[in-house]
């Protein structure tokens, strides 16, 4: 019994394909053996004459057991009886052993799944194993109805299902573990926006500076001055970060969001920051974020944009300890020098990890951001 696989210990001889006395040649199929992998045809590796069949069909024998005897020496003439006794007809005294009727050919193993072509293709696309599925199709076949819907559409580098899970895990952990405190402050952006308008005059739309860049510019510099809010809560202690790497929250088309880091945002000029933000948004939505960008952020900023809400109470991204929110810029009546005048304002919010910092410190950060926005420096 040949070994038909490293894990094979025994096999069942199903059928002899040759009769005793028959001449065989290297490569001929001489027997069929049933293994755990199905019925396998057994080849012979030598020329010769098969003398006797030791194992009867239906017998299960271990690997290495003798199945039959092959007379390799009987190379030349066919083993005919007639040469010795030309006149003697074959007699019952020397009966050519009649091979017993072969048992029915073994059926394919029962583990073979019936799967419709469409279902097999969808399962492959989903990466789903077919084992364990119950078929409800024709003749019990696994059909499309037995599989989940079409494979999740992979768009440009991120997996929405996986992303949702990651967001769920991070936000769930944040709300379970982090005692948030929230602060908010409405800031007059009119001077800064007027400056932006001056800077943007003459610039083509793709090069214009957006209000979000101005706010982020102020926030990054303010964070650099309040290191207690820039870092991580790890092992029941706060660890300050080495630099200000701002995670910039980017909403993805089709759902989900990602907050890749702009490294050393506090040291970038307004123009450089704008370039970095555009690049990050394009790569976040089109694919191509680097792994480090997804892990380096020391603080997160979320800006709701010009179609967003007026303010946000954000959730801290663990292990960070602070997140800042920029609301939509709105025109509101504002008191300036004792007079009510229309001004363009936005509400800045801060959520802080109360284990790492206190509201007073957070308030100082918001005040510093406001101050920087009120007195925009020329780059």
């Amino acid at each position, binding site marked *: 019994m040949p070994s038909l696989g490293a894990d094979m210990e025994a096999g069942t001889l199903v059928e002899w394909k040759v009769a005793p006395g028959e001449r065989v040649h290297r490569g001929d199929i001489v027997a069929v053996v049933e293994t755990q992998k199905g019925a396998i045809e057994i080849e012979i590796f030598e020329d010769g004459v098969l003398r006797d069949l030791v194992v009867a069909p239906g017998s299960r024998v271990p690997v290495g057991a003798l199945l039959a005897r092959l007379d390799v020496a009987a190379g030349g003439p066919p083993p005919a009886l007639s040469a010795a006794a030309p006149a003697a007809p074959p007699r019952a005294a020397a009966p050519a052993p009649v091979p017993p009727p072969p048992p029915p050919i073994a059926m394919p193993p029962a583990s073979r799944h019936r799967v419709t*072509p*469409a279902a097999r293709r969808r399962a492959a696309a989903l990466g789903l194993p077919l084992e364990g599925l119950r078929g409800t*199709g*024709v*003749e019990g*076949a696994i059909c499309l109805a037995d599989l989940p819907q079409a494979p999740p559409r992979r768009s440009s580098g991120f997996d929405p299902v996986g992303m949702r899970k990651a967001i769920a895990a991070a936000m769930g952990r944040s709300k379970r573990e982090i005692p948030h405190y929230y602060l908010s402050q409405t800031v007059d952006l009119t001077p800064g926006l007027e400056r932006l308008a001056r800077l943007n005059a003459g610039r083509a739309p793709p090069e214009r500076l957006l209000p979000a860049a101005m706010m982020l510019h102020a926030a990054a510099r303010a964070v650099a001055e309040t290191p207690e809010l820039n870092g991580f809560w790890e092992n029941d202690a706060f660890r300050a970060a080495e630099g200000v790497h701002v995670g910039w929250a980017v909403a993805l088309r089709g759902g989900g969001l990602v907050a890749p880091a702009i490294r050393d945002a506090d040291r970038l000029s307004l123009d450089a920051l704008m370039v970095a933000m555009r690049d990050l948004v394009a790569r976040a939505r089109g694919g191509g974020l680097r792994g480090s960008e997804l892990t380096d952020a020391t603080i997160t900023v979320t800006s709701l944009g010009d179609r967003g809400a007026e303010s946000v109470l954000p959730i801290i991204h663990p292990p960070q300890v602070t997140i800042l929110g920029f609301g939509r810029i709105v025109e509101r009546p504002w008191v300036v020098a004792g007079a009510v005048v229309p001004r363009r304002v936005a509400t800045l919010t801060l959520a802080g990890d109360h284990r790492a910092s206190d509201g007073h410190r957070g308030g100082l950060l918001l005040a510093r951001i406001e101050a920087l926005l009120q007195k925009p420096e020329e780059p």
Partner: protein
Amino acid sequence: MSTAPARITYREACREAIRAAILADPRVFLMGEDVGRYGGCYAVTKGLLEELGEARIRDTPLSESAFVGAGIGAAIAGLRPIVEVMTCNFSLLALDQILNNAATIPHMSGGQFAVPLVIRMATGAGRQLAAQHSHSLEGWFAHIPGLRILAPATIEDARHMLAAALADPNPVLIFEHIMLYNMEGELDPAVQGVDIASARIRRPGHDVTLVTYGGSLFKTLDAAEALAREGIESEVIDLRVLRPLDTATIMQSVARTRRVVIVDEGWRSGSLSAEVAMRIMEEAFFELDAPIRRVCSREVPIPYAAHLEQAALPQPGSIAEAARGLARPAP
């Protein structure tokens, strides 16, 4: 011309198609057994001899080989003959002419001779005409390169396919199912012609595709109606053109429904239904979510006795049962 839909029988639509073709083109004429004085064995040509005269409506001797051959010669010589073969069962007497001459001469002559011939035949069972008058042999002719095979099932196709067939420079065979001649329906006068290239979806549905043609179309539509009452929406494709097959329409439907039943009054073995099924395997295997099923005639010479004849043919019940087995497999 009236723009209101006219009620008309399939037989009248066939007759009007012939009449209009003859009136429109002096090269067109009709010949066949009993088409003139008798008015056609299925009365399609009744009255045409009186109206159009003996030069255009010609009775022939009872020799299919002779008058089909004459039609081929007339076509090669520049006329546009319409040859009526009484039933497709008799067309075997002209098979040599159809295969070895009509389908072949354009190719063997290197395109020097076109054979713009149209042959009309009645096909199918259902009128207790027994085995020598009831078979559906269109699938055999659909085997032959060089022929275009049409199976008008609707009144519109009966009315308009002939003109398109006459415009084709190659031989075209039209199979008219005998059970359709009495069917009455509306003919939209706004439709002035049809193509002879495409299949049509006669009923849209998303659960299972029923592919059929000719006399089986309305049985299949009846089955689809019954299935719809059970909540199974079947899409019924009328092949219309049996050669060359419009496989694109079939494959698009299979991609939607993923289940197929082919209904063919021909015998199952080596049949057009086998060809359609194999095309699906070749072109849309991975769309399939169930085995392809077929409903064909029993493999017997069509019996004479009415109950046996009906039992031998595809019926709405057997079609619906096959579709149900795919759309709602038994647990």
